[in-house]
């Protein structure tokens, strides 16, 4: 996968776009999370309206120049309302229905399961198929007319007949009342029986089958809230070791905890922090160093963190600095003041790995998203836009001018649209297929087969 970020092997091309084309976007339609399942056959999105949409990859055989060519499209498989707006009467607080995170469970039978969460409540959903229907009643005939009860001379047992495939989503469990603050992360443990959920100050561990109790494993709430200096921004379980998890903080640090050591993981096992460069210190240093996302590599050896301006890859065996640092949009460093004024500086960009951990992807403004090839150190900026959405059209690399003179094909920093931001992206676990959420549209791109 050496050529992921603009090498010679392949180019990214447009595959599909989902969502309305209208200019005025309804708030509820804004996509708030994107997640592939473990095989990549399914892709789930959640939105601010509390809905979850699941797409299924359908293999189709196209004939292109008389040669069969395997191409797949993601089509809607199931749509359901996961969360509804609520009101906390005791605290006079509105609870938004916005889906903060979706996590798929490892498949356990023919049905599929996922966890979805808003600010307060986590739900376990089952998505299953049904293709048979029972037929034949005793008390009514085929047309639905009631039979005379006294004329029933024999008993009929219903018979199952094939019918059109129906996909059902049913809520299996609701994990509520455990978070005082807003849930920012959920992560399924590799033991397949527990998961953790993190809010601003606490991390809880749940058993997937028990909804009425959870264990608090991290609590950073100070006795006096005036002494509060940092909050938890993200947390994730190590993909192979059931006892290890990490959480990131608004101070730009990451703590790794071992659940074997103690029931309460207030004391971390490892502490990842890069010493600050005193020369670049400014008023905004602390804000931009806040980590908005942390993701383990599939191998479990590395983790990636996203702060406002960069993505860092850490080796779990080295705590004092990241092994790789990639600048996402360094040209914004001079713009921090205005980004602070329009609140953009608090945007929480997420990041993701490709299936083989050789490349990473994260979002930026102006509907730009960035990919970095870890082997070649090459990077590329692409744009998710309607204009480039021609069937199988290749995506042209974009460039933002950083110097005084703007070259041809370059975009000046001042003309970037800060309302168009790509916060959520996902990479197929096995293929070069990516899903990019741009406001209310979901773009799917894939590698062009030459």
């Amino acid at each position, binding site marked *: 996968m050496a050529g992921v970020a603009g090498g010679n092997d392949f180019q990214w091309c447009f595959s599909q776009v989902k969502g309305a084309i209208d200019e005025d976007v309804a708030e509820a339609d804004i996509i708030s999370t994107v997640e592939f399942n473990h095989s990549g056959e399914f892709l789930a999105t959640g939105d601010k309206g509390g809905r979850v949409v699941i797409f299924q990859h359908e293999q189709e055989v196209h004939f292109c120049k008389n040669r069969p060519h395997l191409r797949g499209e993601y089509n809607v498989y199931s749509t359901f309302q996961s969360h509804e707006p609520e009101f906390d009467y005791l605290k006079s607080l509105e609870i938004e229905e916005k889906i903060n995170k979706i996590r798929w469970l*490892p498949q356990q*039978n023919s049905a599929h399961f996922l966890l979805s969460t808003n600010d307060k409540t986590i739900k376990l959903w089952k998505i299953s198929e049904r293709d048979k229907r029972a037929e034949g009643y005793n008390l009514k005939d085929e047309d639905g007319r009631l039979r005379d009860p006294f004329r029933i001379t024999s008993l009929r047992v*219903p018979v199952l007949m094939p019918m059109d495939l129906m996909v059902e989503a049913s809520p299996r469990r609701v994990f509520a009342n455990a978070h005082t603050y807003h849930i920012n992360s959920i992560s399924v443990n590799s033991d397949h029986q527990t998961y953790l959920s993190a809010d601003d100050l606490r991390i809880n561990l749940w058993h997937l089958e028990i909804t009425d109790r959870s264990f608090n494993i991290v609590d950073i709430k100070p006795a006096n809230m005036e002494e509060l200096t940092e909050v938890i921004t993200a947390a994730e379980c190590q993909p192979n070791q059931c006892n290890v998890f990490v959480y990131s903080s608004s101070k730009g640090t990451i703590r790794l905890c071992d659940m074997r050591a103690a029931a309460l993981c207030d004391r971390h096992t490892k502490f990842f922090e890069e010493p600050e460069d005193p020369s670049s210190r400014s008023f905004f240093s602390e804000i931009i160093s806040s980590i908005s996302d942390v993701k383990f590599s599939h191998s479990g050896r590395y983790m990636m963190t996203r702060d406002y301006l960069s993505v860092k890859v850490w080796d779990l065996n080295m705590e004092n600095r990241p092994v790789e640092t990639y600048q996402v949009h360094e040209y914004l460093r001079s713009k921090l003041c205005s980004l602070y004024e329009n609140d953009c500086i608090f945007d929480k960009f997420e990041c993701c790995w490709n299936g083989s951990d050789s490349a990473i992807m994260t979002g930026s403004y102006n509907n730009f998203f960035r990919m970095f090839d870890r082997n070649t150190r090459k990077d590329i900026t692409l744009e998710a836009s309607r204009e480039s959405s021609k069937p199988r059209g290749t995506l042209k690399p974009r460039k933002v001018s950083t110097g005084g003179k703007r070259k041809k094909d370059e975009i000046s920093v001042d003309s970037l649209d800060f309302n168009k931001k790509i916060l959520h992206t996902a990479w197929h676990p096995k293929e070069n297929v990516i899903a990019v959420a741009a406001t209310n549209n979901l773009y799917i791109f894939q590698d062009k087969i030459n």
Partner: protein
Amino acid sequence: MQHKSKMAGADGDDSLYPIAVLIDELRNEDVQLRLNSIKKLSTIALALGVERTRTELLPFLTDTIYDEDEVLLALAEQLGNFTMLVGGPEYVHCLLPPLESLATVEETVVRDKAVESLRKISQEHSPVDLEVHFEPLVKRLASGDWFTSRTSACGLFSVCYPRVSSTVKAEIRQHFRTLCSDDTPMVRRAAASKLGEFAKVLELDYVKSDIISLFTALASDEQDSVRLLAVEACVSIATLLPQEDLETLVMPTLRQAAEDKSWRVRYMVADKFSELQKAVGPEITKNDLVPAFQNLLKDCEAEVRAAAANKVKEFCENLPEDSRETIIMTHILPCVKELVSDTNQHVKSALASVIMGLSTILGKDNTVEHLLPLFLAQLKDECPEVRLNIISNLDCVNEVIGIRQLSQSLLPAIVELAEDAKWRVRLAIIEYMPLLAGQLGVEFFDEKLNTLCMAWLIDHVYAIREAATCNLMKLVEKFGAEWAQNTIVPKVLGMANDPNYLHRMTTLFCINALSEVCGQDITTKQMLPVVLKMSNDQVANVRFNVAKSLQKIGPVLDSNALQTEVKPVLEKLDTDTDMDVKYFAQEAISGKYTTLSIFFLYEVASLGPRSLLVVLVLCQTHRSTMCPAECVSQCER
């Protein structure tokens, strides 16, 4: 028409109608109706006859696994008792397909129930059928694509193993081995939890050759959740092996588990310590388990220390008699002494709940010399649960050294608990009052504790006042009516003139509780006049409680008092302006009790309209599972 129908009915056909309804409701929209039908599945099967049950009903049920969990659970349970309905043991294998599909659903309770039913009907298979039908099913499940089916298979090996041929036995052992090293932790957990059970049905040679290696592998699994289940298996395996093999086959693994890196595994060892101790026998206990137990009592994780502390008494009891006292005095007691001042209150509280039991094991002298200082220290502990646990186990010490030894420290501890800021703590100590009173005797009680008992009657939490009322009744049962007349009745009746209506009502509640134990004389002469006088109270809640009290104490009074004194007052209350007062007056007159729910609402209402409102809001908006007394107490706070 009418006539014709009746004719058909006379032919006996309408007897099918209820069955027809049941069959149709198997797929009603309403879950409750489906559940109802499934629960009457045997009725349906009986009506259909064995033939149609096998050919039509079971195939339909096999494909009905889309339903709600509770319906599937009921179905899985029903099928376990279906053998006769499909034609007896000869046809019992017809039940396998539906149970097989139920054994693959994702819901653990349903799967477990399906496995339970499969285990049950496996006994009804002939040895031939077992090999032809049952064993292939186990194999299918064991090699299923999804881990749900493989986990279910783990529970079935042990039931078919003893009854199959040796070739099939070899296959079963192989399948079990495969599942023990399955890719998913779910399956390894299921295998680990069934390891002990499977070991029990295996020939001893195979236990040594197969099971031990599986046990060792599972006990060093990378997943904590698998390793900790191996501890449980350790108990069963150790019981199966001859003593001389334990040291080489089991002990290395057990020692490793007791020092596992994960506190959850060590916790499991601590939690299962008594079972382990019995399984490995006295010699290994002395040499290995005593030091292991000491380490667990000193573990760095509080959860582990608490689990070990809980086992102190049982462990000491089960020590070999010849060396019991020495081991306790030299090895266990020093650790226990440290735990008394542990930093974690759960640890101290766990210890406090069992430490008193050591006195019977150690005898009078050791108790006075070594344990008493610990009891006294725990009685002064800052954490109320610790003190409570000591007090609640006083009877053990009482038998050995008598409670007087403790009374000097006991009293301040009780007084402090009685005034604790947490109402649950106050509630807990009230519940021990009758016991304490019995052990300390009436004089001590009158002198020191009586005032406390009376003070609880005017506590600001209803649950405490209620418990205090009940407490008085139990005290009177212990000390007798004469004592009541002299010490508590005057005080209770005095509260009838209290300016606070809640206290006036407490008088009534006390009278309700005390009338029977105090007897007719005291009730008629002292209590009744007060109750009657209170019927003129300005607060309606007091007045309707008068009606309720009169109904309550009615049986204790003689008919003369009822006719001349009670009846006129009830009749007066029946004309009250307040509808609730009227209602309860009528209830009392007719002698009927209200339904429980209304009774509850009025109880709550008697605490004032605001409480009622809050309770209702709480119950409705949060579907609170709190008991009413708790709700109310919280409202008051």
